[in-house]
């Protein structure tokens, strides 16, 4: 069937029912796309399970992060309509209740993540507070009428969700017929609450989750995009009816709470009783995700410095979206397992060891081809070299050992990294970065102790005061104790020793204070000459002064930390077999996530040879007769003069034009002209 038609733009193709059975699964595509057929099924399974793990982990993290916020919101809702629930009819309450309780939810600029937040928020509310939730978006509500329509539609639908199925028909009918006004909303609310009150005992369970006369929650997802008039009208109208049904507004705000006041005049905003809620900033959110997903040994796949940098840059410079960051990470997982045949070993250590045993010969060859493995082989004695390169069994043995090493390396790496971060994050000016991710990148990039920043941060660390030093050491001990690394007992011992020494110092200091200071002696002497002499002596002694005990200890501590860093924070690409667990083709990631179509067009037009690699431009020019070049030049000039050029669809037309106008004989193809 063809997709060319003069009367139609859409074509649906349905396979015949017989053929439909043989549809392929995702795993098939995974296998097909691979040049290496090695273990692709297993790889795909590993990939999928890893993806699932990451997904559940990130979701859980997000839930935890939002928990606090949601708790606050729920308690706010509870408070806001406590009066209504008691059904008090006091006059004072009536007058006061012209104010609509409103929650201003400051969510930050990461707009793409808001959807997720709102979805989980409405879930939480639905489960705990009220079935009556309406989510409104500015693009659906250009006028107050549309807003009411949308509002009623959503409210009545969610009523159906709670209500039984037999009521559905009735609701469906009313939904289309009901005139969208506040009165109909109130009527609906009354009937709805009545119905839930008078429900059969079997259904009580559902309503008991919610409160008596649950509030109607209206969420404005993107407050800033609503037109002022719509918002004003809605607030004014609903404030008239606030006595009749419990309404709560939630404003989702991306910028600052001030926006409420700039959007709504005082007369309107005074009808709102606003309480401010602040969600976690997206940067903190990202740090948590990086901390819990990337800086652990929990997930076998690791990101190399460049890849991480690309992801972080996209986050910081493009969207502030944690969701997109996670998406990028997911893409890394797929790419890694898809492109690297050895990624089969990228799983938990025990499993990986088992898999090493069943490696095929081809896979062994793949291992031998790894640059890091070659380096390793070269460092071995010659007999061992031969064994590694010829016998698969000895290779497998070595791989097992190396994988174990790698695992140990990671186990040690992360806690020590955190310890170092404790130190560097409190230094003035943060020479190694404030965030742990920066430190992580620096460590991955090359030997961190060879960098200038590290040097300066050590120097700064040598000037720390005692109390800071003690708290840092305590933190380090905590980190190390809680981490699973095996070698840390000794380190912890040592650090504790330092701590006790500091303790002792304190006591000795007090003793020292009592001893007579030279200054006191100074006062006794009145002779000018003597005075001068002692002052000189003092100066001398100060210059060549022996370090105090504290200073000595401080030096010792810093040196110790330094030695730890040198031992454990070796960059990953110095490790043998790092290719298996590190995803490092950052260019792929950037190409697919952060593409530059403009530049692609530019390159294609100005330098098609980067795509058509065969013939080099120089040869091409040498081949051309001068007049051809001359005319080509002119035609290029013509092309460039036309604004239609900007639209690539039209380029061809311009090109054909120049062909037809003067270049019939010479130009043999479009590229020539374009290139010129």
């Amino acid at each position, binding site marked *: 069937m063809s*997709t060319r*038609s003069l009367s139609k733009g*859409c*074509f*649906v*193709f349905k*396979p015949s029912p017989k053929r*439909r059975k043989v549809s*392929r699964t995702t795993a098939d*595509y995974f296998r097909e796309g691979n040049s290496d057929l090695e273990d692709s099924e297993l790889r795909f399974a590993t990939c999928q399970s890893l993806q699932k793990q990451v997904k559940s982990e990130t979701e859980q993290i997000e839930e935890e992060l939002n928990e606090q916020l949601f708790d606050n919101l729920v308690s706010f809702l509870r408070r806001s309509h406590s009066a209504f629930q008691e059904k008090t009819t006091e006059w004072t309450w009536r007058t006061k209740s012209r104010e609509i309780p409103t929650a201003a939810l400051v969510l930050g600029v990461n707009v*793409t993540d808001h*959807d997720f937040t709102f979805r989980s928020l409405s879930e939480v509310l639905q489960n705990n507070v009220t079935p009556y939730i309406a989510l409104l978006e500015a693009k659906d509500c250009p006028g107050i009428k549309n807003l009411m329509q949308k509002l009623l539609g959503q409210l009545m639908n969610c009523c159906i969700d709670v209500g039984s199925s037999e009521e559905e028909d009735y609701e469906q009918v009313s939904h289309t017929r009901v005139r969208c006004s506040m009165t109909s909303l109130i009527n609906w609310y009354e009937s709805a609450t009545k119905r839930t009150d008078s429900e059969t005992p079997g259904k009580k369970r559902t309503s008991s989750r919610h409160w008596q006369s649950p509030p109607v929650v209206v969420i404005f997802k993107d407050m800033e995009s609503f037109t002022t008039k719509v918002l004003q009208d809605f607030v004014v109208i609903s404030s008239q009816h606030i006595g009749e049904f419990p309404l709560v507004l939630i404003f989702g705000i991306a910028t600052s709470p001030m926006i409420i006041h700039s959007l709504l005049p005082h007369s309107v905003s005074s009808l709102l009783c606003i309480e401010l809620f602040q969600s976690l900033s997206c940067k903190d959110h990202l740090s948590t995700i990086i901390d819990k997903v990337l800086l652990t040994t929990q997930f076998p796949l690791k990101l190399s410095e460049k890849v991480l940098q690309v992801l972080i840059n996209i986050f910081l410079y493009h969207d502030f*979206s944690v969701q997109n960051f996670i*998406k990028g990470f997911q*893409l890394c997982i*797929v790419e890694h397992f*898809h492109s690297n045949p050895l990624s089969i070993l990228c799983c938990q250590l025990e499993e990986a060891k088992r898999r090493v045993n069943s490696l095929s010969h081809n896979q062994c060859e793949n291992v031998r081809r790894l640059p890091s493995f070659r380096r390793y082989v070269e460092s071995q004695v010659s007999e061992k070299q031969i064994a590694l390169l010829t016998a698969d069994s000895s290779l497998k043995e070595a791989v097992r050992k190396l994988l174990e090493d790698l695992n140990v390396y990671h186990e040690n790496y992360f806690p020590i990294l955190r310890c170092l971060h404790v130190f560097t994050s409190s230094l003035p000016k943060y020479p190694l970065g404030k965030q742990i991710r920066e430190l992580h990148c620096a460590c991955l990039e090359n030997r961190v102790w060879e960098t200038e920043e590290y040097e300066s941060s050590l120097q700064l660390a040598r000037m720390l005061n005692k109390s800071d030093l003690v708290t840092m050491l305590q933190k380090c001990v905590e980190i190390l104790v809680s981490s699973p690394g095996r070698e840390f007992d000794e380190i912890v011992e040592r650090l504790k020793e330092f701590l006790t020494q500091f303790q002792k110092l304190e006591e000795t200091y007090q003793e020292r204070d009592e001893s007579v200071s030279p200054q006191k002696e100074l006062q006794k002497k009145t002779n000018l000459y003597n005075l001068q002499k002692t002052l000189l002596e003092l100066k001398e002694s100060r210059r060549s002064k022996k370090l105090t005990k504290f200073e000595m200890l401080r030096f010792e501590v810093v040196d110790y930390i330094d030695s730890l860093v040198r031992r454990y924070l070796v960059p990953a690409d110095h490790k043998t077999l790092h290719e298996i667990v590190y995803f490092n083709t*950052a*260019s792929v990631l*950037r*190409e*697919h996530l952060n*593409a*530059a*179509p403009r*530049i692609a*067009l*530019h*390159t294609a037009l100005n*330098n098609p*040879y980067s*795509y058509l690699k*065969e*013939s080099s*431009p120089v040869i091409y*020019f*040498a081949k051309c007769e*001068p*007049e051809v070049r*001359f005319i080509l030049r002119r035609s290029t*000039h*013509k092309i*460039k*003069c*036309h604004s239609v050029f900007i639209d*690539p*669809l039209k380029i*061809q*037309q311009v090109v*054909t*034009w120049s*062909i*037809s*106008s*003067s270049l019939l*004989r010479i*130009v043999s*193809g*479009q590229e*020539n002209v374009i290139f010129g």
Partner: protein
Amino acid sequence: MSLAECRSAGALEVKFVPDEDVLRHIADDAGVKVQKGKSQLIVNTKRFVKKLEAISDDEAQEILEEKNYVAVLGLCGEESMTNGSSVGGGEVYTFQTPKRSNKMAELASELAQTPGQSVVPDPSECPEKTARTPQSSKRSSSNQVQQKTKKNEFVSTTPYRLRRRLAAPDAQLESESEYSASCSEEEEVEEAQKEVSTVLSHQKTPAKTKAVSTPPSRKTLTKKKDNMNNLVEEYFEAHSSSKVLTSDRTLQKLRRKRLNQQTLHDLLQKSPLAYAAEIKELNQQYESLFSKWMLQLHLGFNIVLYGLGSKHDLLEKFRTSMLQDSVHLVVNGYFPSITVKSVLNSITEEVLDHIGTFRSPLDQLEFIMKRFKEDSSLELYVLIHNLDSQMLRGERSQQILAQLSSLPSIYLIASIDHINAPLMWDQAKQSLYNWLWYETTTFSPYVEETSYENSLLVQQSGSLALSSLTHVLHSLTPNARNQSSLGLSFQDFYQQCREAFLVNSDLTLRAQLTEFRDHKLIRTKRGADGVEYLLIPVDDSTLTDFLEKEDEDV
């Protein structure tokens, strides 16, 4: 008749012209050219001086420079292939016009100085010139006008800047290094030149070259002194005349610009595709990605293809090779009357077999989303050619498509071509689309995509309008005929017609005009002052042709 003759002459007579002729021809143009703004000239001569120092006339140097230029670009290109962003914002599509033009100057001077080796076959210009000379003698007076217009067109066929550049070199090649323009004297000279050239341009004699070249040679040695004084002024003058950068070359100016559809098609068919092998290889490279695309589609990403060249064939190949066993929808975004509604309709009616209508696209979308969420076995591949087409690029359409594509069981693969296409999507939409970008520069012509559009090269309905014009005119009474003049206010027109004794009342004129109006040969428009204006919505060339024909007939 004469028109047709002339046209055929232009198309068929491809003649090789000796260098001297070409040179003279260029110099001719140069003479006329000097009339253009003085500041421009100053700027250019100024620049020219700078350039000439760098120019050396041997071929090797030329090629070397070429090489450097290409190498720089190549570097960018290569990097952009690997990490995608090495070409910075400013560099992309600024077109580097100054650089280009000075290249042209080099080339031109090169051509001028090394006459032995180059022959310029210029089928559009030179043959016409030769072809016309014998004819002009026997032309009637009415043809004179035409010839004049033709001449103007003809004159402007050499690129504007080139002509300007050429004004100087052939006159002053020897002394150019000392030559530096100063404003006041320049003006005088120009004044003189202007006079000379305006006179000469009507006569069209070879002597013109000499006449033009004399004044510049006079001034060459006297310039240097108040060079410094004027430097500042020149600087500002040079920078104020940004006009220099744009060219007045338009399609309209081109002689013999329009072909009919068939000829154009044939012409295109005849020219073989260059680098066919490389392009094929390129395409094969992309085809090897198909299963990866499928994998990524299944993993929840959507795929967008970008890059120069039509991606229609690639997607079509993808469809035939991968999607034969599954339900899929192909949307031709370039189809002129495509709407989101038609996309949604084909999903609901043909994929979901739903009969019934929806109040709004949003309702329809909701319905689709509901159905796809309920039934997890439903899967749909959507291929959209040109997601950025006129009809689909609207905010609402994109929103709906984005929401559609965010469904886990709808797999979207689309292509974009417009250079600013990514601007369609804000962050929210992008995250709904969940794009993976793939660069697929195919270099293949946009045949399918442009098939619905009118080509710029094809003579648009010109012949149709012309014939209808003739027909209508012939069907009118002689009195009415002469009314088909111009776009002018109704009252003026009425006055004119009255004076020519064509009509005697407002009403009769209107009645006669309806005939024109019915055939869409005349349009009325109300101006800002409420006066009715008459317009002829036919382009100038057609009208000129028409008038010529009429004259011949008479």
